[in-house]
Protein backbone atom coordinates (compact mmCIF):
# COMPACT_ATOMS: atom_id res chain seq x y z
CA UNK A 1 0.00 0.00 0.00
CA UNK A 2 1.26 3.48 -0.85
CA UNK A 3 1.72 5.73 2.17
CA UNK A 4 -0.33 8.89 2.61
CA UNK A 5 2.80 10.97 2.25
CA UNK A 6 3.80 9.24 -0.99
CA UNK A 7 0.30 9.69 -2.42
CA UNK A 8 0.36 13.39 -1.65
CA UNK A 9 3.83 13.82 -3.10
CA UNK A 10 2.85 12.00 -6.29
CA UNK A 11 -0.30 14.10 -6.64
CA UNK A 12 1.67 17.28 -6.05
CA UNK A 13 4.19 16.42 -8.75
CA UNK A 14 1.43 15.39 -11.15
CA UNK A 15 -0.33 18.75 -10.69
CA UNK A 16 2.84 20.86 -10.91
CA UNK A 17 4.61 19.10 -13.77
CA UNK A 18 4.52 20.79 -17.13
CA UNK A 19 3.74 17.49 -18.82
CA UNK A 20 1.25 15.39 -16.93
CA UNK A 21 2.42 12.03 -15.69
CA UNK A 22 -0.53 9.96 -14.49
CA UNK A 23 0.30 8.30 -11.17
CA UNK A 24 -0.96 4.73 -10.88
CA UNK A 25 -2.38 5.58 -7.45
CA UNK A 26 -5.39 7.22 -9.18
CA UNK A 27 -8.33 4.92 -9.64
CA UNK A 28 -9.79 4.66 -13.16
CA UNK A 29 -13.46 3.92 -13.77
CA UNK A 30 -15.93 3.89 -16.61
CA UNK A 31 -17.06 7.47 -16.01
CA UNK A 32 -13.75 9.14 -16.84
CA UNK A 33 -10.13 8.10 -17.19
CA UNK A 34 -7.39 9.10 -14.77
CA UNK A 35 -5.90 11.64 -17.16
CA UNK A 36 -9.06 13.71 -17.48
CA UNK A 37 -9.62 13.49 -13.73
CA UNK A 38 -6.13 14.72 -12.97
CA UNK A 39 -6.40 17.42 -15.60
CA UNK A 40 -9.11 19.18 -13.58
CA UNK A 41 -6.64 19.72 -10.73
CA UNK A 42 -3.81 20.68 -13.07
CA UNK A 43 -5.93 23.21 -14.91
CA UNK A 44 -7.52 24.55 -11.73
CA UNK A 45 -4.14 25.16 -10.09
CA UNK A 46 -2.93 27.36 -12.94
CA UNK A 47 -6.22 29.22 -13.35
CA UNK A 48 -6.45 30.05 -9.65
CA UNK A 49 -2.92 31.40 -9.46
CA UNK A 50 -3.35 33.38 -12.68
CA UNK A 51 -6.61 34.88 -11.44
CA UNK A 52 -5.02 35.83 -8.11
CA UNK A 53 -2.17 37.58 -9.93
CA UNK A 54 -4.53 39.38 -12.30
CA UNK A 55 -6.42 40.74 -9.31
CA UNK A 56 -3.29 42.14 -7.65
CA UNK A 57 -1.34 43.31 -10.72
CA UNK A 58 -3.80 45.46 -12.62
CA UNK A 59 -1.19 48.07 -13.57
CA UNK A 60 1.15 45.39 -14.87
CA UNK A 61 -1.70 43.86 -16.85
CA UNK A 62 -2.28 47.21 -18.49
CA UNK A 63 1.41 47.77 -19.20
CA UNK A 64 2.18 44.26 -20.45
CA UNK A 65 -0.94 43.97 -22.61
CA UNK A 66 -1.05 40.75 -24.61
CA UNK A 67 2.21 39.52 -23.04
CA UNK A 68 0.62 39.45 -19.59
CA UNK A 69 -0.76 35.89 -19.71
CA UNK A 70 2.54 34.42 -20.94
CA UNK A 71 4.39 36.34 -18.25
CA UNK A 72 2.12 35.01 -15.51
CA UNK A 73 2.27 31.45 -16.84
CA UNK A 74 6.07 31.54 -16.81
CA UNK A 75 6.03 32.82 -13.24
CA UNK A 76 3.56 30.12 -12.22
CA UNK A 77 5.73 27.46 -13.89
CA UNK A 78 8.86 28.72 -12.12
CA UNK A 79 7.39 29.48 -8.68
CA UNK A 80 5.21 26.98 -6.85
CA UNK A 81 3.02 28.74 -4.29
CA UNK A 82 4.34 28.52 -0.75
CA UNK A 83 1.95 30.63 1.32
CA UNK A 84 -1.33 29.26 2.58
CA UNK A 85 -3.13 32.36 1.37
CA UNK A 86 -3.17 32.67 -2.42
CA UNK A 87 -3.30 36.44 -2.02
CA UNK A 88 0.46 36.40 -1.19
CA UNK A 89 1.45 34.46 -4.27
CA UNK A 90 2.48 37.60 -6.13
CA UNK A 91 5.13 38.59 -3.57
CA UNK A 92 7.93 37.31 -5.83
CA UNK A 93 6.67 38.49 -9.21
CA UNK A 94 8.66 41.75 -9.39
CA UNK A 95 11.90 39.94 -8.50
CA UNK A 96 11.09 37.31 -11.15
CA UNK A 97 10.72 40.04 -13.78
CA UNK A 98 14.10 41.45 -12.69
CA UNK A 99 15.95 38.35 -13.84
CA UNK A 100 13.73 36.35 -16.20
CA UNK A 101 14.25 36.62 -19.94
CA UNK A 102 12.87 38.54 -21.86
CA UNK A 103 11.31 40.79 -19.22
CA UNK A 104 14.60 41.65 -17.52
CA UNK A 105 15.39 43.82 -20.55
CA UNK A 106 12.29 45.95 -19.86
CA UNK A 107 12.83 47.19 -16.30
CA UNK A 108 9.61 49.17 -16.40
CA UNK A 109 7.71 45.86 -15.97
CA UNK A 110 9.40 45.01 -12.66
CA UNK A 111 8.88 48.60 -11.48
CA UNK A 112 5.20 48.36 -12.36
CA UNK A 113 4.91 45.03 -10.52
CA UNK A 114 6.53 46.60 -7.44
CA UNK A 115 4.02 49.43 -7.41
CA UNK A 116 1.07 47.05 -7.81
CA UNK A 117 2.39 44.88 -5.02
CA UNK A 118 3.04 47.81 -2.64
CA UNK A 119 -0.55 48.91 -3.18
CA UNK A 120 -1.77 45.41 -2.47
CA UNK A 121 0.28 45.10 0.72
CA UNK A 122 -0.87 48.51 2.01
CA UNK A 123 -4.52 47.53 1.56
CA UNK A 124 -4.75 45.32 4.65
CA UNK A 125 -1.59 46.31 6.51
CA UNK A 126 -1.86 47.24 10.19
CA UNK A 127 -3.92 50.33 10.99
CA UNK A 128 -1.99 53.50 11.84
CA UNK A 129 -3.19 56.73 13.38
CA UNK A 130 -1.75 59.94 12.01
CA UNK A 131 -0.96 63.03 14.08
CA UNK A 132 -2.85 66.27 13.49
CA UNK A 133 -1.76 69.82 12.74
CA UNK A 134 -2.94 70.74 16.26
CA UNK A 135 -0.70 68.02 17.76
CA UNK A 136 2.31 69.39 15.92
CA UNK A 137 1.45 72.99 16.76
CA UNK A 138 1.82 72.12 20.42
CA UNK A 139 5.54 71.41 20.00
CA UNK A 140 7.48 74.30 21.66
CA UNK A 141 9.44 76.41 19.11
CA UNK A 142 12.78 75.72 20.75
CA UNK A 143 12.25 71.97 20.38
CA UNK A 144 11.78 72.09 16.61
CA UNK A 145 15.42 71.88 15.51
CA UNK A 146 15.83 68.49 17.24
CA UNK A 147 12.45 67.11 16.16
CA UNK A 148 12.55 63.63 14.59
CA UNK A 149 9.39 62.42 12.89
CA UNK A 150 8.02 58.89 13.07
CA UNK A 151 6.35 58.08 9.79
CA UNK A 152 3.62 55.56 9.03
CA UNK A 153 5.06 52.04 8.97
CA UNK A 154 2.97 51.29 5.89
CA UNK A 155 4.65 54.01 3.86
CA UNK A 156 6.65 52.57 0.95
CA UNK A 157 8.80 54.60 -1.40
CA UNK A 158 9.66 52.90 -4.66
CA UNK A 159 12.28 53.79 -7.24
CA UNK A 160 10.59 53.82 -10.59
CA UNK A 161 12.09 54.13 -14.05
CA UNK A 162 8.81 54.83 -15.84
CA UNK A 163 5.36 56.36 -15.37
CA UNK A 164 4.03 53.27 -13.58
CA UNK A 165 1.70 55.42 -11.49
CA UNK A 166 -0.11 56.58 -14.63
CA UNK A 167 -0.62 52.96 -15.75
CA UNK A 168 -2.01 52.00 -12.37
CA UNK A 169 -4.27 55.03 -12.24
CA UNK A 170 -5.64 54.23 -15.68
CA UNK A 171 -6.28 50.63 -14.62
CA UNK A 172 -7.96 51.77 -11.39
CA UNK A 173 -10.35 54.01 -13.29
CA UNK A 174 -10.95 51.78 -16.30
CA UNK A 175 -9.25 54.25 -18.64
CA UNK A 176 -7.16 53.41 -21.72
CA UNK A 177 -3.54 52.76 -20.90
CA UNK A 178 -1.25 55.77 -21.21
CA UNK A 179 1.83 56.08 -23.39
CA UNK A 180 4.88 54.57 -21.70
CA UNK A 181 7.42 57.12 -20.53
CA UNK A 182 10.85 55.94 -19.45
CA UNK A 183 13.01 58.05 -17.14
CA UNK A 184 16.80 58.21 -17.46
CA UNK A 185 17.01 58.54 -13.67
CA UNK A 186 14.65 56.69 -11.37
CA UNK A 187 11.94 58.78 -9.75
CA UNK A 188 10.17 57.93 -6.54
CA UNK A 189 6.58 56.92 -5.97
CA UNK A 190 5.23 56.71 -2.47
CA UNK A 191 2.46 54.32 -1.44
CA UNK A 192 0.59 54.57 1.83
CA UNK A 193 -2.82 54.06 3.35
CA UNK A 194 -4.92 56.62 5.18
CA UNK A 195 -7.80 55.04 7.08
CA UNK A 196 -9.06 52.47 4.59
CA UNK A 197 -7.92 54.09 1.34
CA UNK A 198 -4.61 53.28 -0.34
CA UNK A 199 -2.90 56.25 -2.00
CA UNK A 200 0.10 56.55 -4.30
CA UNK A 201 1.77 59.50 -5.94
CA UNK A 202 5.03 60.48 -7.54
CA UNK A 203 7.35 62.58 -5.37
CA UNK A 204 8.99 65.78 -6.51
CA UNK A 205 12.74 65.62 -6.17
CA UNK A 206 12.94 68.08 -3.26
CA UNK A 207 10.14 66.28 -1.39
CA UNK A 208 11.93 62.95 -1.80
CA UNK A 209 15.11 64.43 -0.33
CA UNK A 210 13.22 65.64 2.74
CA UNK A 211 11.04 62.55 3.08
CA UNK A 212 14.05 60.25 2.71
CA UNK A 213 15.80 62.15 5.51
CA UNK A 214 12.67 61.92 7.67
CA UNK A 215 12.48 58.15 7.07
CA UNK A 216 16.12 57.86 8.16
CA UNK A 217 15.19 59.67 11.39
CA UNK A 218 17.14 62.87 10.68
CA UNK A 219 16.36 66.00 12.72
CA UNK A 220 14.14 68.82 11.50
CA UNK A 221 17.26 70.96 11.04
CA UNK A 222 18.65 68.36 8.63
CA UNK A 223 15.32 68.12 6.83
CA UNK A 224 15.39 71.89 6.24
CA UNK A 225 18.97 71.63 4.98
CA UNK A 226 17.79 69.12 2.34
CA UNK A 227 15.81 71.90 0.69
CA UNK A 228 18.84 74.18 0.33
CA UNK A 229 19.76 72.77 -3.04
CA UNK A 230 16.29 73.42 -4.44
CA UNK A 231 15.08 76.64 -2.81
CA UNK A 232 16.48 79.99 -1.73
CA UNK A 233 16.05 81.31 1.79
CA UNK A 234 12.76 83.00 0.98
CA UNK A 235 11.03 79.92 -0.40
CA UNK A 236 12.60 77.08 1.59
CA UNK A 237 10.58 77.52 4.79
CA UNK A 238 7.19 77.96 3.05
CA UNK A 239 8.00 74.79 1.08
CA UNK A 240 8.84 72.91 4.29
CA UNK A 241 5.60 74.08 5.89
CA UNK A 242 3.65 72.97 2.81
CA UNK A 243 5.33 69.54 2.89
CA UNK A 244 4.55 69.04 6.58
CA UNK A 245 0.95 70.10 6.09
CA UNK A 246 0.63 67.68 3.19
CA UNK A 247 2.12 64.79 5.17
CA UNK A 248 -0.13 65.51 8.15
CA UNK A 249 -3.21 65.68 5.93
CA UNK A 250 -2.17 62.37 4.35
CA UNK A 251 -1.76 60.76 7.78
CA UNK A 252 1.92 60.03 7.12
CA UNK A 253 3.26 61.40 10.41
CA UNK A 254 2.52 59.13 13.35
CA UNK A 255 4.39 61.17 15.91
CA UNK A 256 7.82 62.51 16.83
CA UNK A 257 10.55 62.52 19.37
CA UNK A 258 12.90 65.27 20.38
CA UNK A 259 16.52 64.21 20.14
CA UNK A 260 18.73 64.77 23.15
CA UNK A 261 21.14 67.63 22.62
Amino acid at each position, binding site marked *: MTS*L*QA*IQQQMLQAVLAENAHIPSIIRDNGIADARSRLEIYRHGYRIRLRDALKTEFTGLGSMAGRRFKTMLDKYIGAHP*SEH*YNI*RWYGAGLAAFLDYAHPWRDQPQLADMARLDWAISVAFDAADETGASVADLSAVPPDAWPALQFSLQRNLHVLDCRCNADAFRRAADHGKPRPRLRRFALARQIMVWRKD*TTVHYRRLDEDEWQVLGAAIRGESFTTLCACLAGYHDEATAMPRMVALLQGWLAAGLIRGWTIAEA
Partner: protein
Amino acid sequence: MAMHATERSDAMPYLGYGLGLRVEHYETLLAQPTGIEWLEIVSENYMVHGGLPLVWLERFRERFPLVMHGVSMSIGSTDPLDDDYLARLAALARRIEPAWVSDHLCWTGVQGVNLHDLMPLPYTEEALDHVVARVKQVQDRLKRRILLENVSSYVSFADSQLTEWEFLAAVAERADCLILLDINNVHVSAMNHGFSALDYLHGIPVSRVQQFHLAGYEQGERLIIDTHDAPVSNAVWDLYIKAVRRFGRVSTMIERDDHFPPLSELIAELEHARSLAKPLLRDAA
Protein backbone atom coordinates in the same frame (compact mmCIF):
# COMPACT_ATOMS: atom_id res chain seq x y z
CA MET B 1 -3.79 16.14 27.66
CA ALA B 2 -6.46 16.29 24.97
CA MET B 3 -9.68 18.06 25.89
CA HIS B 4 -12.97 16.29 25.49
CA ALA B 5 -15.98 17.96 23.92
CA THR B 6 -17.81 17.92 27.21
CA GLU B 7 -15.11 20.16 28.70
CA ARG B 8 -15.70 22.81 26.07
CA SER B 9 -18.43 25.38 26.38
CA ASP B 10 -19.15 25.25 22.67
CA ALA B 11 -22.76 24.17 22.31
CA MET B 12 -23.62 25.44 18.88
CA PRO B 13 -26.88 27.20 18.08
CA TYR B 14 -29.26 26.66 15.19
CA LEU B 15 -28.85 29.77 13.04
CA GLY B 16 -31.49 29.30 10.34
CA TYR B 17 -30.75 30.29 6.72
CA GLY B 18 -27.59 32.14 5.79
CA LEU B 19 -25.26 33.19 3.02
CA GLY B 20 -21.55 33.16 2.30
CA LEU B 21 -20.33 36.74 2.74
CA ARG B 22 -18.69 38.02 -0.44
CA VAL B 23 -17.35 41.50 -1.29
CA GLU B 24 -19.74 41.77 -4.23
CA HIS B 25 -22.72 41.92 -1.86
CA TYR B 26 -21.29 44.04 0.98
CA GLU B 27 -23.26 47.21 0.24
CA THR B 28 -26.56 45.52 -0.52
CA LEU B 29 -26.40 43.30 2.54
CA LEU B 30 -26.18 46.30 4.85
CA ALA B 31 -28.58 48.51 2.94
CA GLN B 32 -31.82 46.63 3.48
CA PRO B 33 -33.43 43.77 5.42
CA THR B 34 -32.67 40.63 3.48
CA GLY B 35 -34.21 37.68 5.25
CA ILE B 36 -30.67 36.40 5.69
CA GLU B 37 -30.25 35.19 9.24
CA TRP B 38 -26.48 34.65 9.41
CA LEU B 39 -23.31 34.94 7.39
CA GLU B 40 -20.37 32.65 6.77
CA ILE B 41 -17.04 34.37 6.19
CA VAL B 42 -13.99 32.91 4.46
CA SER B 43 -11.59 33.04 7.40
CA GLU B 44 -8.44 33.74 5.37
CA ASN B 45 -9.95 36.93 3.90
CA TYR B 46 -9.98 38.48 7.37
CA MET B 47 -6.78 37.03 8.82
CA VAL B 48 -5.11 40.35 8.07
CA HIS B 49 -3.50 43.10 10.12
CA GLY B 50 -5.99 45.90 9.40
CA GLY B 51 -7.64 47.98 6.72
CA LEU B 52 -10.94 47.73 4.95
CA PRO B 53 -11.61 43.97 5.37
CA LEU B 54 -11.75 44.28 9.15
CA VAL B 55 -13.81 47.49 9.01
CA TRP B 56 -16.44 45.69 6.92
CA LEU B 57 -16.27 42.64 9.13
CA GLU B 58 -17.12 44.71 12.22
CA ARG B 59 -20.12 46.19 10.43
CA PHE B 60 -21.44 42.75 9.56
CA ARG B 61 -20.71 41.45 13.02
CA GLU B 62 -23.01 44.11 14.47
CA ARG B 63 -25.85 42.92 12.25
CA PHE B 64 -25.49 39.17 11.76
CA PRO B 65 -24.34 36.07 13.61
CA LEU B 66 -21.12 34.97 11.90
CA VAL B 67 -19.43 31.63 11.35
CA MET B 68 -15.87 31.16 10.09
CA HIS B 69 -15.09 28.88 7.15
CA GLY B 70 -11.47 28.29 6.21
CA VAL B 71 -9.88 26.87 3.08
CA SER B 72 -6.24 26.50 4.14
CA MET B 73 -6.01 24.40 7.29
CA SER B 74 -4.88 21.42 5.22
CA ILE B 75 -5.96 19.05 7.93
CA GLY B 76 -5.04 16.00 5.88
CA SER B 77 -1.58 17.07 4.77
CA THR B 78 1.48 15.15 5.87
CA ASP B 79 3.27 18.48 6.35
CA PRO B 80 3.13 19.76 9.93
CA LEU B 81 0.17 21.97 10.82
CA ASP B 82 1.01 25.62 10.12
CA ASP B 83 1.51 27.31 13.50
CA ASP B 84 1.27 30.81 12.07
CA TYR B 85 -1.97 29.92 10.32
CA LEU B 86 -3.50 28.46 13.47
CA ALA B 87 -2.41 31.44 15.56
CA ARG B 88 -4.05 33.87 13.14
CA LEU B 89 -7.16 31.72 12.91
CA ALA B 90 -7.42 31.59 16.69
CA ALA B 91 -6.92 35.36 16.91
CA LEU B 92 -9.71 35.99 14.41
CA ALA B 93 -12.00 33.62 16.32
CA ARG B 94 -11.27 35.49 19.54
CA ARG B 95 -11.98 38.78 17.80
CA ILE B 96 -15.33 37.95 16.20
CA GLU B 97 -16.57 35.10 18.41
CA PRO B 98 -18.15 33.08 15.60
CA ALA B 99 -20.88 30.55 16.29
CA TRP B 100 -18.44 27.95 14.91
CA VAL B 101 -15.29 27.43 12.86
CA SER B 102 -15.08 25.08 9.90
CA ASP B 103 -12.66 23.90 7.23
CA HIS B 104 -12.46 21.01 4.77
CA LEU B 105 -11.65 17.31 5.02
CA CYS B 106 -8.80 17.49 2.54
CA TRP B 107 -5.20 18.54 2.06
CA THR B 108 -4.18 21.70 0.22
CA GLY B 109 -0.43 21.25 -0.06
CA VAL B 110 2.59 19.19 0.87
CA GLN B 111 6.38 19.62 0.94
CA GLY B 112 5.86 23.33 1.58
CA VAL B 113 3.98 23.84 -1.69
CA ASN B 114 0.37 24.96 -1.69
CA LEU B 115 -1.98 23.89 -4.45
CA HIS B 116 -4.79 26.16 -3.20
CA ASP B 117 -7.21 23.36 -3.94
CA LEU B 118 -9.23 21.01 -1.78
CA MET B 119 -7.36 17.81 -2.61
CA PRO B 120 -9.07 14.55 -1.71
CA LEU B 121 -7.53 12.07 0.69
CA PRO B 122 -7.09 8.36 0.21
CA TYR B 123 -9.63 6.78 2.55
CA THR B 124 -7.24 4.50 4.39
CA GLU B 125 -6.75 3.59 8.04
CA GLU B 126 -3.41 5.42 7.94
CA ALA B 127 -5.05 8.64 6.67
CA LEU B 128 -7.82 8.25 9.23
CA ASP B 129 -5.37 8.01 12.15
CA HIS B 130 -3.46 10.98 10.77
CA VAL B 131 -6.49 13.23 10.32
CA VAL B 132 -8.04 12.31 13.66
CA ALA B 133 -4.82 13.22 15.49
CA ARG B 134 -4.61 16.56 13.71
CA VAL B 135 -8.25 17.48 14.29
CA LYS B 136 -7.69 16.88 18.00
CA GLN B 137 -4.60 19.07 17.85
CA VAL B 138 -6.52 21.89 16.15
CA GLN B 139 -9.47 21.63 18.52
CA ASP B 140 -7.15 21.82 21.51
CA ARG B 141 -5.46 24.86 19.99
CA LEU B 142 -8.73 26.65 19.17
CA LYS B 143 -10.39 25.43 22.37
CA ARG B 144 -13.49 24.53 20.43
CA ARG B 145 -14.82 21.73 18.27
CA ILE B 146 -14.50 22.37 14.56
CA LEU B 147 -16.67 21.38 11.61
CA LEU B 148 -15.17 19.55 8.64
CA GLU B 149 -16.76 19.78 5.22
CA ASN B 150 -16.85 17.04 2.61
CA VAL B 151 -15.17 18.22 -0.60
CA SER B 152 -16.06 17.63 -4.23
CA SER B 153 -13.53 15.38 -5.87
CA TYR B 154 -12.49 14.17 -9.30
CA VAL B 155 -9.96 11.52 -8.35
CA SER B 156 -10.13 8.63 -5.95
CA PHE B 157 -7.29 6.39 -4.94
CA ALA B 158 -6.68 2.72 -5.65
CA ASP B 159 -5.58 2.19 -2.04
CA SER B 160 -8.77 3.51 -0.41
CA GLN B 161 -10.18 0.99 2.05
CA LEU B 162 -13.23 2.97 3.19
CA THR B 163 -15.94 4.90 1.41
CA GLU B 164 -15.79 8.67 1.72
CA TRP B 165 -18.77 8.71 4.07
CA GLU B 166 -17.32 5.97 6.26
CA PHE B 167 -14.12 7.98 6.47
CA LEU B 168 -15.89 11.28 7.27
CA ALA B 169 -18.10 9.62 9.88
CA ALA B 170 -15.11 7.93 11.50
CA VAL B 171 -13.14 11.20 11.64
CA ALA B 172 -16.09 12.94 13.30
CA GLU B 173 -16.64 10.18 15.83
CA ARG B 174 -13.03 9.54 16.72
CA ALA B 175 -11.89 13.19 16.79
CA ASP B 176 -15.18 14.37 18.28
CA CYS B 177 -15.66 17.05 15.66
CA LEU B 178 -18.75 18.06 13.71
CA ILE B 179 -19.68 17.95 10.04
CA LEU B 180 -20.48 20.64 7.55
CA LEU B 181 -22.32 18.64 4.93
CA ASP B 182 -22.11 20.22 1.49
CA ILE B 183 -25.10 18.71 -0.32
CA ASN B 184 -23.79 19.88 -3.69
CA ASN B 185 -20.41 18.25 -3.05
CA VAL B 186 -22.08 14.95 -2.15
CA HIS B 187 -23.93 15.06 -5.47
CA VAL B 188 -20.86 16.08 -7.49
CA SER B 189 -18.65 13.38 -6.01
CA ALA B 190 -21.42 10.76 -6.29
CA MET B 191 -21.78 11.49 -10.00
CA ASN B 192 -18.03 11.63 -10.60
CA HIS B 193 -17.22 8.42 -8.79
CA GLY B 194 -20.42 6.47 -9.37
CA PHE B 195 -21.56 6.00 -5.76
CA SER B 196 -25.01 6.57 -4.30
CA ALA B 197 -25.60 10.01 -2.76
CA LEU B 198 -28.29 8.42 -0.59
CA ASP B 199 -25.84 5.83 0.75
CA TYR B 200 -23.63 8.78 1.62
CA LEU B 201 -26.35 10.59 3.56
CA HIS B 202 -27.33 7.42 5.39
CA GLY B 203 -23.71 6.80 6.35
CA ILE B 204 -23.33 10.12 8.15
CA PRO B 205 -24.28 10.18 11.85
CA VAL B 206 -27.20 12.57 12.38
CA SER B 207 -25.87 14.03 15.61
CA ARG B 208 -22.65 15.20 13.95
CA VAL B 209 -24.15 17.42 11.24
CA GLN B 210 -24.13 21.08 12.25
CA GLN B 211 -24.39 22.88 8.89
CA PHE B 212 -25.44 22.39 5.26
CA HIS B 213 -23.97 24.07 2.22
CA LEU B 214 -25.98 24.40 -0.99
CA ALA B 215 -24.29 25.44 -4.23
CA GLY B 216 -24.25 25.02 -7.99
CA TYR B 217 -21.95 23.18 -10.38
CA GLU B 218 -21.01 22.95 -14.04
CA GLN B 219 -21.69 19.86 -16.10
CA GLY B 220 -18.47 18.92 -17.88
CA GLU B 221 -18.11 16.47 -20.73
CA ARG B 222 -17.80 13.42 -18.48
CA LEU B 223 -17.36 14.83 -14.99
CA ILE B 224 -19.25 17.40 -12.96
CA ILE B 225 -17.11 20.37 -12.01
CA ASP B 226 -17.81 21.94 -8.64
CA THR B 227 -17.69 25.60 -9.58
CA HIS B 228 -19.97 27.06 -6.91
CA ASP B 229 -20.80 29.66 -9.54
CA ALA B 230 -24.31 28.69 -10.60
CA PRO B 231 -27.77 28.34 -9.08
CA VAL B 232 -28.45 25.21 -7.05
CA SER B 233 -29.45 22.42 -9.45
CA ASN B 234 -32.68 20.42 -9.27
CA ALA B 235 -30.70 17.30 -8.43
CA VAL B 236 -29.16 19.06 -5.43
CA TRP B 237 -32.54 20.42 -4.29
CA ASP B 238 -33.83 16.84 -4.38
CA LEU B 239 -30.90 15.68 -2.32
CA TYR B 240 -31.42 18.58 0.09
CA ILE B 241 -34.98 17.36 0.75
CA LYS B 242 -33.60 13.92 1.55
CA ALA B 243 -30.96 15.47 3.79
CA VAL B 244 -33.56 17.48 5.72
CA ARG B 245 -35.60 14.29 6.17
CA ARG B 246 -32.56 12.53 7.61
CA PHE B 247 -30.84 15.26 9.58
CA GLY B 248 -33.79 17.49 10.54
CA ARG B 249 -33.29 21.15 11.35
CA VAL B 250 -29.76 22.14 10.28
CA SER B 251 -28.36 25.65 9.70
CA THR B 252 -28.29 26.01 5.94
CA MET B 253 -26.62 28.42 3.56
CA ILE B 254 -26.08 29.14 -0.11
CA GLU B 255 -22.39 29.26 -1.02
CA ARG B 256 -21.67 31.20 -4.22
CA ASP B 257 -18.02 31.77 -5.09
CA ASP B 258 -18.14 33.26 -8.58
CA HIS B 259 -20.49 34.70 -11.23
CA PHE B 260 -22.24 36.61 -8.50
CA PRO B 261 -25.87 37.37 -9.29
CA PRO B 262 -27.78 40.23 -7.63
CA LEU B 263 -28.28 39.47 -3.96
CA SER B 264 -32.02 39.11 -4.55
CA GLU B 265 -31.39 35.93 -6.58
CA LEU B 266 -29.48 34.32 -3.73
CA ILE B 267 -32.17 35.40 -1.28
CA ALA B 268 -34.76 33.76 -3.54
CA GLU B 269 -32.71 30.53 -3.50
CA LEU B 270 -32.52 30.71 0.26
CA GLU B 271 -36.27 31.21 0.43
CA HIS B 272 -36.68 28.14 -1.76
CA ALA B 273 -34.59 26.14 0.70
CA ARG B 274 -36.83 27.37 3.53
CA SER B 275 -39.98 26.44 1.65
CA LEU B 276 -38.68 22.93 0.92
CA ALA B 277 -37.60 22.30 4.48
CA LYS B 278 -40.57 23.82 6.29
CA PRO B 279 -43.20 21.10 5.65
CA LEU B 280 -40.65 18.37 6.35
CA LEU B 281 -39.68 19.88 9.67
CA ARG B 282 -43.34 20.43 10.58
CA ASP B 283 -44.03 16.75 9.83
CA ALA B 284 -41.13 15.80 12.04
CA ALA B 285 -42.23 18.02 14.93
